[in-house]
């Protein structure tokens, strides 16, 4: 094992390398490119025995990933944002083949307008695809989750592809100290892929992705994917326990931080949750009973673990780094669905939309969200959803619009 300063992208590449990925179909996109470059460099230097092929699009890349997985090799790929969307047809198609592989997504906001910076609308667009989803908060977690994802995806009770998500910039380009285990250590936890019946060979023709008419047959195949995804919850717990035993790092499906005796907790995914931890520490110093509950696993949805973590709390600050137009925050709606009608659940789920397109969430905003939620608990009235957006930010926007307006008039004249 070595402990080194590496970026989230490098951590993802290390995950693929240590997992012994044998085939990497690739297409570059900011902020994911470094993953592909790193792997290509290792393969070139003979440090990694793997075939990397650049395809002409993410659609082809994901088709290749799914097809290669069906032959029984260990497949890794990575994308981001528009690339993920471009491959979306295959994202939804691949899980039905029941051939496992791991896809890393480096979150980046989606257009329009275009950005390079992160939020979670890209990854949440894959929410209903059948891919299992692991969400990371640190560079260490990126490496570790990639290894865990293979175990989970390849387990014969599951056999679904898995997606590991890390935030662009805040993880992808950020170096943090990461324990990089030796290949021999990893092999104990993650032995070579045993594809069992997943062996699509030239001599044994199989047709995949076939037509199934008649809703009942279709329902069967689709619901089987759902059941397998649900089974992955139990498998995840086993895999995470083994991981902890091997490497000493614990990754519950739902991370809880100082939440046991908390009255109000933050609920969010991704790298900004470490900022929330910092806010929790500061608020605790100020005598407030505040904590954090963060689902690592978003698919399958760890509903039971969330109910356990949230039972008896007064209020939940739900921070969505995504936006479903005309509805609001995706995490908020899902959480409400999991808690509704269950005994002992917090009466107030306050919805906040923040960090879109990489916008910072400042410490004072974390404090204020707690304040708003506390007040709501006292008054028994859930506040309307709130976009984290300051008067100063609106002023800057208005300034740009004034310039655009003047230009437009000039144009018309």
């Amino acid at each position, binding site marked *: 094992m070595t402990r080194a*300063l590496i*970026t989230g992208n490098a951590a993802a590449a290390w995950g693929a390398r240590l997992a012994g990925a044998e085939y990497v179909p690739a297409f570059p996109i*900011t902020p994911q490119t470094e993953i592909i470059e790193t792997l290509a460099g290792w393969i070139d230097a003979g440090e990694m025995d793997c075939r990397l092929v650049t395809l002409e699009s993410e659609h082809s890349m994901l088709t290749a990933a799914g097809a290669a997985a069906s032959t029984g090799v260990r497949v890794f790929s990575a994308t981001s944002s528009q690339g993920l969307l471009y491959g979306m047809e295959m994202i939804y198609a691949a899980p039905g083949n029941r051939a496992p592989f791991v896809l890393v997504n480096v979150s980046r906001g989606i257009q*329009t*307008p275009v950005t*390079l910076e992160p939020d979670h609308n890209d990854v949440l667009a894959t929410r209903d695809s059948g891919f299992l989803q692991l969400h990371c908060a640190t560079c260490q977690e990126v490496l570790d989750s990639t290894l865990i994802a293979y175990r989970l995806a390849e387990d014969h009770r599951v056999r679904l592809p898995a997606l590991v998500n890390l935030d662009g*910039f*805040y993880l992808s*380009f*950020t*170096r*943090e*100290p990461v324990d990089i285990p030796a290949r021999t250590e990893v092999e104990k936890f993650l032995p070579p892929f045993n594809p069992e019946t997943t062996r699509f060979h030239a001599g044994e023709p199989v047709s995949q992705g076939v037509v199934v008419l008649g809703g009942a047959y279709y329902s069967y195949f689709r619901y089987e994917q759902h059941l397998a995804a649900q089974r992955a919850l139990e498998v995840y717990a086993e895999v995470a326990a083994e991981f902890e035993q091997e490497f000493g790092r614990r990754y519950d499906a739902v991370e809880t931080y100082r939440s046991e005796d908390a009255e109000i907790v933050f609920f969010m995914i991704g*790298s*900004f949750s*470490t*900022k929330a*931890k*910092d*806010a929790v*520490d*500061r*608020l605790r*110093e*100020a005598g*407030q009973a505040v904590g954090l509950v963060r689902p690592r696993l978003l698919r399958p949805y760890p509903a039971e673990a969330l109910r356990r973590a949230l039972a008896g709390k007064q209020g939940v600050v739900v921070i969505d780094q995504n936006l479903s137009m005309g509805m609001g925050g995706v995490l908020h709606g899902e959480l409400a669905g999991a808690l509704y009608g269950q005994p002992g659940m917090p009466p107030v789920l306050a919805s906040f939309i923040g960090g879109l397109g990489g916008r*910072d969430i*400042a*410490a*004072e*905003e974390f*404090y*204020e969200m707690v*304040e708003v939620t506390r007040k709501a608990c006292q008054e028994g009235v859930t506040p309307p959803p*709130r*976009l*984290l*957006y*300051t*008067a*100063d930010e*609106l002023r800057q926007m208005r300034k740009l*619009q004034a310039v*655009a*307006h003047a*230009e*437009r008039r*000039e*144009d018309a004249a």
Partner: protein
Amino acid sequence: MYRIRFHGRGGQGMKTASRILGSAFFLQGYEVQDAPRYGAERRGAPIFAYVRAARQPIQERGIILAPDLVIVADDSLLPMPAAGVLQGVTPRTTLLIHSSEAPETWRQRLNIAGSLLTLSAQAEPHFAGTALTGAAARLVGVIMRSALEQAVRQELAGLGEETLSANLAQALAAYDGMAAHAGQVSEGEASAAVACPRPDWVDLPLDEADAAAAAIHAGATSVEVRTGLWRTLRPVIDYARCKRCWWVCSEFCPDSAIKVSAENYPEIDYEHCKGCLICVAQCPSHAITPIPESSEVKP
């Protein structure tokens, strides 16, 4: 926790500088987080990078709003509000500017009460990053000379011995030069939740769709952005070889940067040619060759 922000322009090695400092802290036993922050990657654009170092694991992320040390590689960024160089600078922040002007001049110009130091401008601007890092390592006072040296070697390992030793010399000279100020930059405290000002959130109003679609309402703005600055390799047409075919080069250029003159010769618009070299690959007469952008022969 030490919170250090670097400001420079793309191409000045800010990312490498921040990584050298990050690695030096790490070698010294600190927990570290370092990251560059830029938009579309290109030379000349303002970028910043940051380094956090602490004895405890670091939970903060992203932009540093209360820096202990601000390092400026390009003094032309100081008057640019968009570069945000002075954001969060307080009397306890040290400002380190790479500039040929005296600290006193900058102190007056910027009306700065806190500590302001300059590192005299390097003859070769691409050394600015490493030199500033060397100075920063001394300013924080907890980085040994040997850790700095090891960090420089580590981060510049891929550049060859000559470049490495030149950079190392710069870094160490700057480190030594800051002896009088060793340890002057200290770790900032975590700001308490109680003393914090509240955010002035607003409800976003619903605007007319027309105003709320991201668009640029002016013609030919792409002409004004000199994308030629991004080029690292320059295509040069050898007119003795050019057969004035049917201007394959011009057809293929994805940036429409090759025009055909009245005499039917192709002409490259270097203000906008990004140096993709597609024209080089496509020219059937092999009349276009690439030369490094830095080479002496200017078009």
